[in-house]
Each structure stands twice: as C-alpha cells, then as structure tokens.
C-alpha cells in the first residue's frame, strides 16, 4: 500500500502482494471507497495519489513537488485500515491514457516517452476537486451553500454521537456581499485538539472507517475540507475554526486555507485565548460565494428535516437577514443506539470485493477466513461453500487462483445462509420519529410513525421507518410533501428518481382516503417521512441523492407506508364521521324550532308551550343520536359538554365579580356574545381544560372542541 509514484518500480514491488492483479485491485479499492464514510475526526492519514499510466512504457522520475511519501506512516499506524484511493484519481489516469493513444493514432509529431514524462506530473486530489468541485456537490451557488452546511452539520452530529454527547447545534448564515455569505456552524461536541485542526479542515480525504459494515451518515465523502477549499477559491478568504477539546483548557482559534497543489493545510493565524462557549465544542466559519434560496432544496428544508430525523439534537438556525433564531427543540434526551459494525454477509458481496477479501485476509486457512471474516458462517456452511469448488478448507486464501475463487463465489451464492444480524442498525424509533415530526412539521392535526422490523437485501440488513403528518395547516390541494432520509440524512435532490418515491406511489392511497392521480404522489394535507437505515444504503449514483430500486427495499417501504396509511385512513374516517355528527347536531338545532312553530301555527298555541315542545324534542333527539354513537365519541361529546358548562359557569362568576350589584342570573345572550367576541382568561383556561378532557378521551378534530353544546342556546 502507499503512495504510488508514476511508474515507480520500487513502489510497485513494495506493494506487490496487494497490487498484483493491478486492474481488479483498483476497482476493489474504488468499491471500498464507495461504501465508506469519511470522518475527518479520525486519526488515519489518507494520502492522495494518482495511478501510473499502465500504457506508459518507462517510469519518469517523480516530480520535485511530490508530497512526502506516507507509506511508512500508513503502514505503521493503520495496518488494519484499507487504503483509500479516490476513484476520481483513477479517472485521471484513464483520461491520460486516452490522450496518449489518441496522439499516436492521429499521427501528430511524435514525442519521446521522456519528453512526455516531463509534462506529466501528479495531480493533487485537492487540485482535481478544485477543478471538479461539482463532484462534491459544489456546483450551483445555491447547492454549494447547502452542501457546505450539510457537511459541517453531519460532522457535528457524528462527532457528538460518537462521544456520547447530546448534540446542540447552531447554524447561522450572514450575507456579506452580493451572492456572498458567511456560514457559521457551532456544536457542543468533543472538540478537536490543536494539532488535528489543520488536517481535518485543510486536507482532503482525511478520515477513516472506509468500508466498515456500520450504519453511519454517509456523505459526499470528502467532507468539510472541501467546503473550506470552496470558500477560499470563491472568496480568497481562509476558514476560521474555533475549538475547545477539554473543558478546562483554552479554546483554540485558527484561520486556515488549503494548498490545492499539495493538499496540505496552510495556517494563517492562530490564537489560544479566545472567547468561546463553555465546555467542549467546535465552531466553523467559512465565507463563500453562494445563493440563499427558500423552498424544497433550501437550507431551511435541510435543517428542518435533519431535526425530524434527529430528535435527540437541538438545532438553532439564523437565516440571512434574520435577527431571530429558529429553534428545533430536542425531543429526546436519549442518544441513538450506537451502531455496531458487522462483518460482511456472504450474500452481500460483489465478486470483486470477495477477491479483495481473499487477498487481504490475515487468516492462514480458507476455513478460518470464511468463519472469521463473514457473519453467519459456521463449519457446516463453510463446508457447503467449498464442496462444489473442490477447494480444501485448509488452503491458503491468498493463494487461491482467480478461476477457483470465482467458482467458490458462485457456490457461496447458492448455499442457504441465515440472514445477517440486524442489531447493527440504529433506527430512530416510531415514538421518536413521531415526536420529531411533531416538532419539525407544526400545525398538523394527526401524527403517526411506524418502524418496520429489520429486513435484508443482498446480504445487507436495513430497516425502514415511516412517519406521517396530516391535516391542520398543511396545504390540502397539493401533492404530499415527501421527506426522504438515508441513515438520518435528508435527501433533498432527485426525488423522482428515488426508489422511496416509487414505493410511495405504488402504495394505493385512495384506500386511505386521499386522492391520487395515476402514477403520482397522493394529493392532500400530508407530510410523509421515510427513513431507511442500513449498513450500506444503495444509492443510484455517487452523488448519493436517490435510493436504488432494490425489490426488497421497495417492498419494505411500501409495507411501511401502507401501515401508516391504514392509521391515516382510520383517522380520516373518524373525521368524516365526526363531521357528519356535527352536521346532525346542527340539524337538530336548525330545524326543531320550525317543528315547534308549525305546531303552534296549526293549533294556535302560546310561546311557552311552543318552547316546551322544542326543548323536549331536542332532548329526545339528542339522546337518540347519542345512543347511536360509538362509546368513545359519546364520552368525548359528554366531556366537551361538561367543559362548556364549566366555561359558562366561569364566565358567569366572572361577570358577577366584574359587576357585583347585578344579581347572579343565567347567562343572557348578551353575556355569551361578549365572551365569545373577546376571549377572556377564564375562557382560555376552560378551553384548555376542555381540550385536556377531550384529548384524554381521544377526541380528534380540533375545531369541534370549540363548538358550544346544543344545550347552551336554550
């Protein structure tokens, strides 16, 4: 392993073991990166490198600006870590190869390999990304601003959770000029020790945990240093980091940039006695070009959704040109269960990765390799694996030939293996998801959430959760809002390409009381939250914005959505029933006087007799109607009525207090009117009382709570 100089024979030899089948091995590494998560706060050093052009016949000398080889460092410190090689690095190689061959074919003036070599130089990964920043999510100004904040927030959340701290984050964006903003993200995490700050913020691909089978916030992969780089490229200004790693020490302040040619940090200013929040924590400030927008792809939406999926975090947010802070309060004081790393499941591997594992294993025998490096493999299963390939269980895994390995891989796929352990997953949980939704989506009248049991696709455990908010202030005649999450990270882009969207559409919403145009999301006052937690969330592309359409995943999402849909359907039916009951109640009030009036006209009765008829009939009908009601609704109505009576009594007594000379009398219509027009304290109290009583009895619609009981008008 290590930095490979262009065509350096020495380097190749040193790594002969792991790099021998050089082409497949490179792919494997790319694969590993694709699965991995970057965490800048780990100690591992990842050296950038570019691969040798395989067609180049002779090895040129390394250019003088070659970064120091870190082979030794990597080897000693990170024997168990898998080397990180950016797949982008390989792209560079491939492109160069093309250029060279095109020149030959075109018959252009020939240059010697030496001449060519003089022009060739290693490109720092930073330089590459500086030129291809769209690959990291820094393309449009609006998306760049969002990506920078996203990287910082995800890092903060990860750091807090790993240190067992309940995250408290503040995010602020200030406009500093035309399309220029200064973002500030501060957390109460463990902080960063002084020596590490420059590496974490001023060096790309600094992190660890690549390829571990562990649920985590998989992000764009490169992280906060890319945001620092973007800031300095677009404004020329350094990023400012303040951090305190120990509550008893001073905070460190540091301004830094990233040298794109060498991928190394440059420190511009450093101070040790700065004002900072008490306790540990980190603040990142970056000034950058960008564009602040509202809407579905906005920072506001991202933070709101992050709050929903992370109910254990408290997030404060100050948007540009706003003085006020928006705060999503913590809904739970329990940190999510720490995800456990698991070994790969035999059915969850591509052939390439399997070959890589054969090469890299430390176990001397195939038997040990199968038993120790995979989950759910026992002696019997290992035996079944090798029968067809005629391999011996005592064979040295590193000496197995390619074709034998392929046969082994195929037979492994055919042997039945128990599903992988699912304790590696850390879902949000239905209760917390619902609470997160309640705080993140205000003003709905109905919230529910469910968590499906874990399931498996291609040997990878995953778990689906769905939350749903309905009614209230949500817009009723638009398609529902769909919030997608992968490992607690909101997915804001590519909604229509996402497997989640497809599953939601196939759920059949008409059965649950919503209208749904053919092949589209349901229409109604609904916010739908879908979270998929997995050791490896399959994205459709490296931009990690949409979930791939695996049938097992689509099915689980659909089932989860339908579970929620059934609860919603029951609620909507209840609502309808309730509104028809209300209508009936109003019917009684509306038409009974006319019956009394007609009888009075025909029989020539007096008013008292007429009123008696009306009142008796009202009681009879009201009783009859109640008898038809289900017990829960009856109780709710009775509670409501009691609350109203209480309210009237309160109003009366207040009237008495306010006007002592007046004798206590039943409330006149005038009094009732005045109180209705000007809600008094007592009313608020009584209303809240009524609310409480009603809620205790599972009374649903809000508007009905304020309805006066029919008795009141008499």
């Amino acid at each position: 392993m290590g930095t490979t100089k262009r065509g350096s024979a020495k380097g190749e030899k040193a790594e002969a073991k792991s790099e021998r089948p050089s082409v497949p091995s490179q792919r494997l590494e790319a694969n590993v990166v694709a699965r991995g998560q970057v965490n800048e706060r780990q100690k591992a050093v990842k050296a950038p490198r570019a691969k040798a052009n395989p067609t180049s016949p002779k090895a040129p000398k390394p250019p003088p600006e070659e970064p120091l080889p870190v082979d030794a460092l990597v080897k000693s410190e990170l024997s168990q870590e898998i080397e990180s090689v950016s797949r982008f690095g390989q792209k560079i190689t491939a492109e160069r190869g093309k250029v060279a061959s095109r020149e030959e074919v075109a018959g252009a003036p020939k240059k010697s390999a030496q001449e060519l070599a003089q022009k060739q130089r290693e490109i720092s990964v930073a330089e590459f990304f500086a030129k291809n920043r769209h690959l990291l999510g820094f393309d449009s100004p609006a998306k760049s601003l969002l990506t920078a904040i996203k990287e910082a927030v995800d890092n903060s959340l990860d750091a807090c959770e790993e240190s067992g701290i309940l995250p408290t984050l503040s995010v602020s964006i200030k406009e500093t000029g035309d399309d220029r903003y200064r973002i500030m993200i501060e957390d109460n995490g463990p902080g960063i020790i002084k020596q590490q700050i420059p590496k974490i913020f001023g060096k790309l691909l600094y992190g660890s945990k690549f390829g571990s089978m562990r649920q985590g916030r998989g992000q764009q992969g490169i992280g906060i240093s890319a945001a620092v780089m973007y800031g300095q490229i677009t404004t020329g200004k350094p990023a400012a980091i303040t951090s305190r790693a120990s509550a008893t020490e001073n905070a460190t302040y540091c301004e830094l940039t990233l040298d794109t040619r060498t991928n190394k940090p440059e420190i511009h200013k450093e101070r040790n006695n700065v004002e900072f929040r008490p306790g540990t924590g980190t603040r990142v400030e970056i000034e950058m070009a960008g564009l602040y927008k509202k809407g579905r792809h906005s920072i506001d939406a991202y933070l709101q959704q992050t709050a929903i999926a992370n109910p254990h975090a408290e997030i404060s947010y100050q948007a540009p040109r706003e003085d006020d802070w928006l705060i999503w309060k913590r809904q739970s004081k329990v940190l999510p269960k720490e995800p456990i790393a698991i070994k790969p499941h035999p059915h969850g591997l591509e052939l390439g990765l399997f070959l890589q594992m054969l090469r890299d294993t430390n176990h001397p025998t195939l038997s040990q390799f199968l038993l120790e490096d995979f989950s759910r493999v026992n002696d019997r299963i290992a035996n079944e694996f090798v029968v067809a390939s005629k391999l011996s269980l005592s064979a040295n895994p590193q000496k197995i030939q390619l074709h034998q390995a392929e046969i082994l891989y195929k037979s492994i796929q055919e042997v039945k293996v128990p599903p992988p352990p699912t304790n590696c997953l850390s879902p949000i949980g239905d209760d917390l998801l619902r609470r997160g939704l309640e705080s993140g989506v205000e003003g709905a009248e109905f919230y529910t959430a469910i968590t499906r049991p874990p399931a498996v696709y291609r040997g990878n455990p995953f778990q689906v959760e769905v939350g749903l908010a309905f009614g209230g202030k949500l817009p009723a005649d638009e398609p529902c809002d769909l919030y997608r999450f992968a490992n607690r990270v909101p997915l804001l882009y590519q909604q229509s390409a996402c497997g989640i969207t497809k599953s939601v559409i196939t759920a059949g919403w008409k059965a649950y009381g919503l209208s749904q145009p053919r092949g589209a999301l349901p229409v109604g006052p609904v916010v739908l939250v879908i979270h998929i937690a997995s050791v490896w969330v399959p994205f459709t592309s490296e931009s990690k914005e949409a979930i791939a359409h695996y049938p097992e995943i689509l099915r689980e999402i659909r089932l989860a959505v339908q579970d929620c849909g059934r609860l919603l359907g029951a609620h909507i039916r209840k609502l309808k029933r309730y509104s028809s009951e209300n209508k009936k109640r109003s019917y009684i009030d509306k038409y009974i006087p006319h019956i009394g009036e007609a009888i009075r006209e025909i029989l020539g009765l007096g008013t008292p007799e007429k009123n008696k008829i009306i009142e008796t009939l009202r009681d009879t009908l009201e009783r009859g109607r109640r008898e038809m009601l289900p017990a829960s609704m009856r109780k709710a109505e009775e509670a409501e009525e009691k609350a109203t009576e209480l309210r009237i009594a309160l109003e009366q007594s207040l009237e008495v207090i306010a006007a002592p000379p007046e004798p206590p009398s039943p409330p006149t219509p005038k009094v009732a009117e005045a109180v209705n027009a000007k809600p008094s304290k007592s009313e608020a109290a009584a209303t809240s009382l009524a609310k409480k009583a009603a809620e205790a009895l599972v009374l649903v619609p809000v508007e009905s709570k304020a309805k006066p009981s029919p008795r009141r008008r008499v």
Partner: protein
Amino acid sequence: MSGKQIKQAIEKVAAQVKEKILKGANPELTFPLRNLANVSYNPKTGYFELQDKFKSRTLTVNTVKTFAQTLKMMALAKELIEKNDIATKRDAYYQSKNWADARFDEQPESDAVMDDVEAFFGVNREQLGFIPDEKGGDVAGELIVIDRDNDTKKPLRIDCTKFGSGAYSVPSSVEHLGFQTKAQFILVIETAGMFQRLVKHNFWRKHNCILISMGGVPTRSCRRFIRRLADEKKIPVYAFTDCDPYGIANIYRTLKVGSGNAAHLNEYFCVPQVSFLGVTPQDIFDYKLPTHPLKKVDEERARDALKNDPFIQHHKRWQDAIKLLLDKGVRAEQQSLAAHGLNYVIDEYLPRKLANPKAFLP
C-alpha cells in the same frame, strides 16, 4: 272532504305529534307509498288503485328537516283553507322562503312534500288550496264549454269552433264546467305541432270531433277535463301519440289509468275509456314510416314498463307491441307521417285508422 273536515284533520295530526313529543317519544307520520309498486290495475274500474303500502316518517335526527317542512306545509294548507285562498305550487315554494333554515331549495322538493301531504289526507291538492301552475291543454272543435264569469258569476258559453287558428285553453280547475256537444269522438294528441296541423285544416269539421292537445304527459286538469267530457257526453276518446316507449308507457298510460305518484287521486284523474289510435308499432311497418333508433333511455323505459307497469302487464297486446319496438330497435314520431306528404295524415292515415276503431290498442 270539505274544507272544514280537512282543517280538522290537519289539527288532529298536529295535536298527535305534539302529544308524542311531550311524552319524550319520537312522533311519526304515515303516508301511502306513492309509486308504481303500490298500485294495482283494476280492469273493471279502469284505473290504478292505491294498495296498502305505507311509508312511515319517524322524527329522528336524519328526518328532522323534512318533518319540519311537512308540518309547515300542513300549516300553510290550513291557513289557505281558513282564508279561502289558493296558492300555486310555485307560490308555495316561494312561501317556504320565509321558513329560514327549513325553506326548500328547489321547487321539486316542495312539490314532493305537497304530494305527501295530499296523499296523507287522501285529498286532491286543490282541496288543500294548492293549485297547479301548469296549463291544462288546448281544445278545438265541436264543443261548447259552459264556464262562468269571475265577477258576475253569470254563465259563459265558449264555442270551441270559434278560435280560428287558435284554441281554447283548459283551466287549472275544471269541476265547475259544463259541456254541450254533438261530436262523434275526442281525438287527444300528444304534440302541439300535430294539433296545429289538424286545426289548420279544420279536421274536426270534416270528422265531427273534438281535438285536444296534451303537450306531453297530460296534466291533472287536462285528464279531468277529458274524463268529465267523455263521461257526461258518452263519447269515445282516441289517443294519438308518438310511437315510442315514452308516448306509450308514460303519456298514454297516465291518460288512461293515472300515475303511480298520484295514485290516491287516479279515480278522478284518468280516462279509462280511451283507446290507442296510433302511432302503433305495427303502423311503422304498415305505413313504412321513417324511424329513429331507440335510445338507451327508451330501451330502459320499455323494459321497465314490461317488468313493473301493472297496466302493461295486464294487456298482452301492449306487451307484444312494446316487444316489437325493442326487437326492431326503432321508434317513430307522429310527424314522420309527413314523409308521405304534408297532409297524408289528414287525407290517408287518420281516415283509414278511424274506419276501424276496434283495432285500436287497449
């Protein structure tokens, strides 16, 4: 029933309802069911008779609006009787606009409640003070109607031969009219267009008859007018309608035996002696008439008549005739006779038909 009796009946009902209410019970009103399922055809009397099916309207949350409206309608009827006044159906509908929430939104609603009240007491709605606002039909030919002057109450003789190209209009109430005629028969015509043609050519003079235009399904007063005239003067009545399920099963059937909706009154508002001159389904083929295909609603109406109409079910010849229409899938209008020449109907069709009244459909 006299006005006084009706008034007493209304008061009795209101008193019963009041008593039930004060006892804490749900009062109920029982009405005869007014549809074809509750009538039978009596060939002896010749009209639809009401059977003993009833609908009961108990006062509950769901019926409270209609219940209030029914009682209000009764109160209005009582008022009309007391004041010896009348209100048209439309008037009654507008009266209800004073009933606040209990008002009728559309006139058909108020008409239905009025029909309920009428059936409830088993009286003619005119006796309740409600008069129809439809006109009764046009008359021309050998007839003198004896009416009276509204102010002087002196008899008025109206000669129906003296309307030239116009016609005498049947009033909404016909009980007080007298007749004088020597006509051989009454020809009752469905469409105004055909009536105009026959009037224009003084068809009645040549055939010594009375021409009456119904303009669709005949109104109650039109039916009553024809009935009284035919009964008193003992002259036969022939119907001349379009040849389609509507002309047969609605217009002709209602004229002859009454309607399901007003079954409690059919005894007076039908013309059992009428027979069907044409256009018969057989005529379509005998006279080679141009046709239109039966529409879906026509087919449904025809099948419904075969299945549910006690009158059609009683007469095999009508069943065969309707089945013939269904089989061929065609219908023909009265005016299709004009295909053979504008006056073909006067010169050929009617004379040929009238030569053999025994062949008319029952």
